[in-house]
């Protein structure tokens, strides 16, 4: 039905529609006077839902043209088909958007043509090509490319799907903004009242659309530069969305914090980019050759054609991945003359890449590591990893749908996505760093989540913790496991956020869990969908049966990889122990949240009494997401989702040999992971049940009074609730020094540079004054001056000028004597160094002692 060339087109439509939506919404919102108009929301939902349909279409087209190879080996094609289909259908049925019918039809049409098309157009590698060239300098080219493999498609589908759900949910959640007089209870004006403002419904959806555009651009990106571009754009959308309540100081501060912290990470990203750019001369992930593969979309959307008489833009024969690693996925380490380990770049056919002079192109191993660390620094910022994790909890200042979409499911996961996407460029050192960072993050965030009382903050810390898990998974070689967790997490975490949003909405913006309790009676749908999410994230399963929620499978995969890694590298045992402990903590705090909020007795009757279940437009997405949170990972590592993801796994990812020169760690192979799988699963399950049990005992049964524990461990509690003092630390270490330095700079300008200038100018003025005096004294009144000075000199000598002849004589005599003495004192031997001149004069040779002639 659709040729492979349609895939980029579908995705491009899905990608660009939200941008169009943004443009229309932002202007329409300004122009339309009716604040109660929901058109903006409708448009946004329509755009993103169409986007979902398009990406689903693209996924199917891709599936057809690969002959569902991804699902072939162990599972039957049907399994995936059904699964993915159900997701699509769920979305299609549930959403209220106008795009529904169209998407439905298109899907059917595609499904019909499925069988006939799959034989001839086999897609083997990723689809690559260029949409648009930003600029070109000689052989260097910066462009907007695409790189489409199964991961891209899965991400696309996931993002558009969740975004559609959240858009729908937001239509309800943000309906309070549909007014001309929105009262913000959190902001107090100077005259003591609450802050009033017109509603900003349209603006919210505009930014949400812009975010979707940016996020999709990030996913489809075919080169790391484009990733950076959209990386920044999602950052700024996040900034706008966190700071949606611009009146709230906390919101704008949190927005700033988020952006700046991300920029800190981007600083590393930029360094990584510079290294790659300088050594590889390209940013492209993969090889692409538009002409050969006939992806017309590239030329169709490409604006820039080569100039007359200029060489055609060189087609990048090999992308970064191909240059860095051979087709077997191994780095080719070589020692150059200085004994420095370098990575020799290769071409697609595994021959060495040569530069114009015929030299081997290579990059020092250290620099490749730095590049990897730099890129990963970007991921740290975006995915709120240690040590840049502190912005994410603050980002909860944004409306809850934003938290659900941006700060749990998509943007923050982009860091993990990039780490996975960029996997082939990472050296073992980088991977180890990723693993440890993930490990630390997972643990730190989980501990803080135990003591958090704000329902959204708990979820935020849990997000950080889970992102740490994903990073850990990628770092220990569990490429598929990390991404698997990314997808499952996206579902259950967005579900939980939406559920919490529902709670907040129902409780009239009450977010403190201690004021809730027993809410399940009032809002059963929310409570039970939330429970589905909690079970999923806790990783619970019924042992011995295939019945398990999605989180179990994905976490299980990560733990298995970590265990295998630990077996391979025993010195890094923490990489297994800490996640395991964290898994227990996760189960504990998630159930704590659920028990706190929904179970037990109401603690604050005011809140409880006014509480109500959310409208259907909000609960429907909850139900859809709950189903997916429970079942998206069906089959675990044998299931369709995992297989689909790992289909685009980089070559040799699970058995990358350690570089001989720099061997530090060994990545476990697939078999090794498989061998420990059941063992790891058991550990994880035990930890999860342990955590759940404790939570149930403490918060469900009330065996232990939490307040009592809090008193017992007050210092620990304080430490945790102060978020490990990270904010204080950063304030002391960075914020204040920056302010100090900046005031120094200003002072330097004012005191040193300007001071010097002022000194110069004063000097000039002084000189000018002197000059003026000189003018007045010498030029204007030379005669007077002479007369005056003569007169004054004369006056000063008047005393001597007695007019007495004899005294003058005395003066003369005394002076002569004085001069003689002076001359003798200072020139005791005379100064007759001149050579005796012939005989015209008597030579005035002075001898030390006069000697009388003996004659």
């Amino acid at each position: 039905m659709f040729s492979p060339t349609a895939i980029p087109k579908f995705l491009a439509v899905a990608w660009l529609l939200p941008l169009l939506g943004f443009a229309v919404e932002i202007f329409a919102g300004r122009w339309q006077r009716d604040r109660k108009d929901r058109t903006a929301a409708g448009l946004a939902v329509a755009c993103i839902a169409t986007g979902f349909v398009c990406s689903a279409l693209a996924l199917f087209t891709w599936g057809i043209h690969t002959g569902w190879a991804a699902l072939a080996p162990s599972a039957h094609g049907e399994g995936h088909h059904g699964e993915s289909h159900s997701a699509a259908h769920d979305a299609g049925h549930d959403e209220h958007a106008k795009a529904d019918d169209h998407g439905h039809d298109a899907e059917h049409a595609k499904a019909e043509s499925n069988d006939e098309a799959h034989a001839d157009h086999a897609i083997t590698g990723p689809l690559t090509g260029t949409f648009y060239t930003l600029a070109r300098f000689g052989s260097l080219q910066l462009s907007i490319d695409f790189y489409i493999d199964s991961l891209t498609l899965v991400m696309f589908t996931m993002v558009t799907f969740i975004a559609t759900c959240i858009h729908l949910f937001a239509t309800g959640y943000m309906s309070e903004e549909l007014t001309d007089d929105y009262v913000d209870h959190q902001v107090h004006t100077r005259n003591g009242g609450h802050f009033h403002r017109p509603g900003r419904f349209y603006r919210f959806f505009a930014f949400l659309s812009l975010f979707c555009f940016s996020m999709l651009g990030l996913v489809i990106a075919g080169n790391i530069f484009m990733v950076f571009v959209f990386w920044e754009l999602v950052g700024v959308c996040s900034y706008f969305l966190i700071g949606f309540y611009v009146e709230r100081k906390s919101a704008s501060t949190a927005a700033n914090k988020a952006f700046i912290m991300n920029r800190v990470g981007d600083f590393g990203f930029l360094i990584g980019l510079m290294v790659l750019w300088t050594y590889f001369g390209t940013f492209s992930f993969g090889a692409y050759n538009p002409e050969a593969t006939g992806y017309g979309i590239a030329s169709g959307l490409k604006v820039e054609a080569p100039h007359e008489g200029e060489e055609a833009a060189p087609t990048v024969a090999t992308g970064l991945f191909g240059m860095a690693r051979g087709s077997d996925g191994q780095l080719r380490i070589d020692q150059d003359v200085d004994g420095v380990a370098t990575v020799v770049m290769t071409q697609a056919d595994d021959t060495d890449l040569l530069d114009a002079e015929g030299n081997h192109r290579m990059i020092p191993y250290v620099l490749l590591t730095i590049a990897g660390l730099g890129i990963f620094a970007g991921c740290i910022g975006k995915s709120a990893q240690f040590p840049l994790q502190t912005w994410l909890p603050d980002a909860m200042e944004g409306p809850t749908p934003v938290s659900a979409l941006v700060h749990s499911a998509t943007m923050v996961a982009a860091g993990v996505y990039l780490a996975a996407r960029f996997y082939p460029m990472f050296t073992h050192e980088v991977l180890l760093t990723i693993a440890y960072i993930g490990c630390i993050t997972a643990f730190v965030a989980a501990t803080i989540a135990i003591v958090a009382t704000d329902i959204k903050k708990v979820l935020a810390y849990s997000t950080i913790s889970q992102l740490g898990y994903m990073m850990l998974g990628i770092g220990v070689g569990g490429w598929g496991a990390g991404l698997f967790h990314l997808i499952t997490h996206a579902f259950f975490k967005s579900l939980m956020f939406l559920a919490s949003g529902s709670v907040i909405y129902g409780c009239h913006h009450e977010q403190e869990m201690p004021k809730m309790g027993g809410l399940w009676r009032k809002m059963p749908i929310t409570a039970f969908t939330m429970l589905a999410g909690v079970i999923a994230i806790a990783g619970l399963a019924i042992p011995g049966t295939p019945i398990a929620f999605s989180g179990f499978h994905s976490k299980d995969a990560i733990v298995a990889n970590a265990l295998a890694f630990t077996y391979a590298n025993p010195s890094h045992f923490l990489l297994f122990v800490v996640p395991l402990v964290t898994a227990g903590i996760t189960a504990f705090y998630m159930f704590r949240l659920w028990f706190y909020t929904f179970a037990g007795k109401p603690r604050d009757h005011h809140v409880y009494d006014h509480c109500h279940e959310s409208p259907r437009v909000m609960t429907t997405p909850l139900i859809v997401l709950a189903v997916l949170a429970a079942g998206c990972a069906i089959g675990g590592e044998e299931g369709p989702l995992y297989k689909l993801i790992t289909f685009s796994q980089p070559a040799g990812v699970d058995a990358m040999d350690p570089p001989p020169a720099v061997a530090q760690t060994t990545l476990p192979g697939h078999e090794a992971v498989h061998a420990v799988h059941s063992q790891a699963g058991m550990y994880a399950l035990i930890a999860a049940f342990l955590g759940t049990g404790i939570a149930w005992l403490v918060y469900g049964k009330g065996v232990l009074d939490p307040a009592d524990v809090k008193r017992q461990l007050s210092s620990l509690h304080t430490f945790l609730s102060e978020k490990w003092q990270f904010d204080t630390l950063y304030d002391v270490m960075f914020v204040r020094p920056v302010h100090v330095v900046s005031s120094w700079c200003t002072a330097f300008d004012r005191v040193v540079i300007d001071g010097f200038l002022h000194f110069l100018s004063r000097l000039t003025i002084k000189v000018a004054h002197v000059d003026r005096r000189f003018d007045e004294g010498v030029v204007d009144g030379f005669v007077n001056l002479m007369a005056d000075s003569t007169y004054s000199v004369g006056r000063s000598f008047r005393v001597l000028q007695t007019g007495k002849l004899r005294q003058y004589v005395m003066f003369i005599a005394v002076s002569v004597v004085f001069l003689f003495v002076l001359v003798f004192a200072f020139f005791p031997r005379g100064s007759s160094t001149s050579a005796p001149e012939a005989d015209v004069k008597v030579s005035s040779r002075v001898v030390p002692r006069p000697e009388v002639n003996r004659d």
Partner: protein
Amino acid sequence: MAGVDLTAYLLVGAVLFVCGIVCMATKRNGIGVLMGVELVLNGANVNFVAFSRYTSLGLDGQMMSLFVIVLAAAEAAIALAIALNFYNNHQTIDVDRGSELQG
């Protein structure tokens, strides 16, 4: 001529010179001052002639002393004229009285 050489003459010249200076410095009588001047000039003359004799100065020294003598004579004439005038004006030749020109 043991012990008599240029140095001895120069010493005599020095004595004459200094005597002249002291004379000029001590005598209040204008004529006395004039005499001091003569002594000074004579001291110089002695030196010139001695140089003429003992060094390669030759006739130049004598020639110079002749000039000095002649000038001294003229100077004496002028000085006397001044002295007379002074006397006419002041009824004395005490040079200390002639301080009208002081500043």
